[in-house]
């Protein structure tokens, strides 16, 4: 989530450090930072903290604890009174997937552009400024995390017959029910989704937790509004957003599960802000909250915390960490009994408390502590033993090990959702992959100076509803495979065999362009060593010569004929015969000049 340093500053008297130290504080005590740009931090809120940290207040709270800078005030620790109540609007929840719904009725607003500070605040974090009322709802959501929505009351049916003038409903959508949303697209709903309705007419005015509807949207002509501050089931919201391919800032907060207690704070803040930036008067609130959130205290002892972390914190250290994090606790014997605040739905087990203490002080404070010796000898894994045995056996005979893909264009089992769509089957054999690999490598064997391509693979296949570990071999005699037999390669040992590791230091990138092979043969006297000739070849071949070696020799009387194989290749272009001819001429010229007789 994009977090603005300027916005955070609203929570503190003392000037905050620069964006970079703020980012460091978060990185080592709370969250990874994806980027910092113009004092905007892109903070990667982890899935366990979506409850409380997808907003500026949550991040300010973290920074206050980490950097020990007191907050001016915390909106979630102040009273959010929903007064006055109003009878003019009523709320009708018909499905328990909506856990709370507060409607706020504000009359006489003047919809127009936002004041500069508000426009800038939302634009700074990458949002589009729409108008003062909509910006106010977005501001409060990004400020304290409660999604909010404003409906144009003038577009709702008035009907005082059954009590209140306006009625807001929450019900299951009907299969096939259509709703035109604020993005001007019509969505077809299913009965797994929830809609917000104008209860008097039963017309849908919003997709619950996801997006408001167009017909009751805020316009320049709007004067009376009904604000929604509600809570919806996380899983349902996630499914709705996924099914409609409509993930919004609201839905991404609900799907992380947020506290229904937050609704009141959101409503109070947004109603006051709307009156401040758009005028009008608050008529009142209607709150339906069938089952109040229950939060359990979490117990953890200092001993437990130290055992988990491997630390040596004193009671006072734990107490101080909890206080800095604003986690209220009482002491019962040696246990800290923590009462998580309303927004901290992530704190449920002692390990969570250990995490709070550990991360606040910093995991860098944890000293590496050796594991004690293991009382028993590790077991030798028969499959791995057999694989290692086979590996060494074939490598010793000049075979190189490859891994080919498990995906194939035929097989018995198939992937239902392969993203690239190609080769969706699980292979039933190593043979096809090895054949391809053999053919491919045959084309480059001269470049590698190989007389012959010899490959093996140890890999899994899926046949007859089972997984099998196979050994496949390919060479000039063809391709074959067999089950990797642990029997044949018997595992009597208590230890693995001591087989060599790769001695490679560093990978050298190779050219992807085709190469050209040329041979050159010459007569020389017996005293001349082939290495001397190779030296002349290499100095006169230029930098396109990537491989040169003697591949043949024979004696005739006093003279010897040597034949050399030269491979030319460029890193950035396809070589032509002309390129190779030029190089060969320079080489031949140099060799002749030295006195060799080119054959």
């Amino acid at each position, binding site marked *: 989530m994009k977090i603005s340093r300027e916005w955070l500053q609203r929570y503190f008297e003392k000037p905050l450090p620069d964006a970079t130290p703020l980012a460091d504080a978060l990185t080592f005590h709370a969250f990874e930072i994806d980027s910092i740009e113009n004092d905007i931090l892109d903070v990667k809120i982890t899935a366990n903290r979506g409850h409380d940290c997808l907003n500026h207040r949550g991040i300010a709270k973290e920074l206050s604890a980490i950097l020990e800078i007191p907050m001016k005030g915390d909106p979630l620790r102040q009273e959010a009174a929903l007064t006055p109540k109003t009878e003019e609007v009523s709320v009708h929840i018909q499905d328990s997937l909506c856990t709370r719904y507060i409607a706020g009725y504000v009359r006489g607003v003047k919809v127009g552009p936002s004041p500069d500070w508000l426009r800038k605040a939302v634009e700074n974090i990458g949002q589009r400024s729409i108008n003062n009322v909509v910006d106010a709802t977005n501001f409060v959501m990004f400020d304290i995390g409660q999604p909010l929505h404003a409906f144009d009351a003038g577009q709702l049916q008035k009907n005082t017959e059954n009590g209140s003038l306006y009625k807001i409903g929450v019900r299951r959508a009907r299969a096939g029910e259509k709703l035109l949303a604020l993005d001007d697209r019509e969505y077809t709903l299913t009965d797994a989704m929830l809609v917000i309705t104008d209860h008097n007419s039963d017309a849908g005015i919003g997709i619950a937790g996801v997006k408001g509807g167009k017909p009751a949207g805020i316009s320049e002509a709007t004067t009376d509004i009904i604000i929604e501050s509600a809570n919806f089931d996380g899983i349902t919201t996630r499914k709705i957003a996924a099914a409609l391919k409509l993930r919004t800032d609201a839905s991404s907060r609900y799907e992380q599960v947020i506290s229904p207690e937050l609704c009141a704070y959101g409503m109070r803040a947004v109603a006051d802000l709307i009156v401040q930036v758009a005028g009008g008067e608050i008529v009142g609130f209607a709150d339906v909250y069938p089952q109040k959130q229950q939060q359990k205290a979490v117990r953890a002892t200092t001993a437990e915390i130290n055992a988990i972390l491997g630390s040596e914190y004193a009671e006072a250290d734990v107490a101080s960490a909890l206080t800095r994090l604003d986690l209220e606790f009482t002491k019962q014997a040696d246990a800290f009994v923590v009462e998580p605040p309303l927004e901290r739905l992530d704190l449920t087990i002692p390990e969570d408390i250990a995490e709070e203490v550990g991360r606040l002080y910093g995991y860098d404070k944890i000293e590496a502590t*050796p594991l004690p010796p293991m009382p028993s000898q590790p077991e030798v894994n028969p499959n791995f033993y057999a694989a290692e045995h086979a590996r060494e056996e074939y490598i010793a005979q000049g075979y190189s090990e490859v891994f080919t893909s498990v995906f194939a264009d035929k097989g018995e089992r198939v992937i239902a959702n392969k993203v690239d769509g190609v080769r969706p089957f699980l292979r039933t054999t190593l043979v096809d992959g090895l054949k391809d690999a053999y053919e491919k490598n045959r084309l480059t064997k001269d470049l590698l100076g190989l007389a012959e391509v010899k490959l093996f693979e140890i890999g899994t296949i899926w046949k007859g509803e089972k997984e099998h570990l196979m050994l496949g071999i390919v060479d000039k005699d063809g391709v074959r495979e067999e089950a990797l037999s642990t029997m044949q390669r018997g595992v009597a040992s208590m230890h693995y065999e001591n087989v060599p590791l790769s001695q490679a230091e560093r990978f050298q990138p190779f050219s992807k362009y085709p190469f050209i092979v040329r041979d050159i043969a010459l007569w020389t006297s017996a005293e001349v060593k082939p290495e001397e000739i190779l030296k002349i070849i290499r100095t006169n071949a230029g930098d396109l010569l990537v491989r040169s070696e003697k591949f043949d020799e024979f004696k005739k009387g006093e003279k010897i004929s040597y034949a050399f194989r030269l491979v030319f290749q460029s890193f950035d272009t396809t070589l032509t015969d002309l390129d190779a001819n030029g190089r060969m001429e320079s080489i031949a010229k140099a060799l002749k000049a030295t006195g060799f007789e080119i054959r």
Partner: protein
Amino acid sequence: MRGHIHPISSLIREANRIFFEMGFTFAEGPLVESEWYNFDALNVPKDHPARDMQDTFFIKGEKEMVLRTHTSPVQVRYMESQMKAGILPPYRIIVPGKIFRNEATDMTHEAEFFQIEGLVVDTEVSLAQLKWTIDTFLNSLFKNVSVETRFRPSFFPFTEPSVEVDMRLVGESAPEKLRGKWIEMMGAGMIHPNVLKNAGVDPSKYRGFAFGMGLDRLAILRWSIDDIRLMHSADLRFINQF
């Protein structure tokens, strides 16, 4: 003339050698895995946002079967089988093996790659021991250079607390491109009590830690490999360098 070992096999061989000395058994499990072992048993319930963290291949016509997205299912399988055999902790295992992510492939993304998992369960196990274990492993692996690690807070459903482990190579002999630079290496943490419970281990008696890191990534760092797709290319221009 000897042939060449695949760099991943060499890394697994080396990792196993280091961990064997530290008392770890090489454990394994199936590549086609049930959603129970791949997700639910690891404290990733259905419809939890955390399931979105991993793009999963599903097997057509087989209910709740997937290509495993990590080696962690073997944690639960191993503990479960030990408990059923009446063998109580301490447990120490590593799980090197192939894993899958439903991604389009490019220079840095592959759909199939390798991971190594580590698991320690005992009556007393701590984050401090996790740090020692990782430090010891990485310092043995990067023989001639000194390796430093640091933990950062993170979140995985199967560990609590969870950490991200960064590594840096220090000293004169470290490759210049990497020297002193922090690199994200792996996820780790203390095993969530629910995972122990799901495997039949009593979380009031035992604790554990687990870590998982990409072997392809480790190979890339170790040998300065520039394209992850080379691992499955079966190209001897690559393999024969090892």
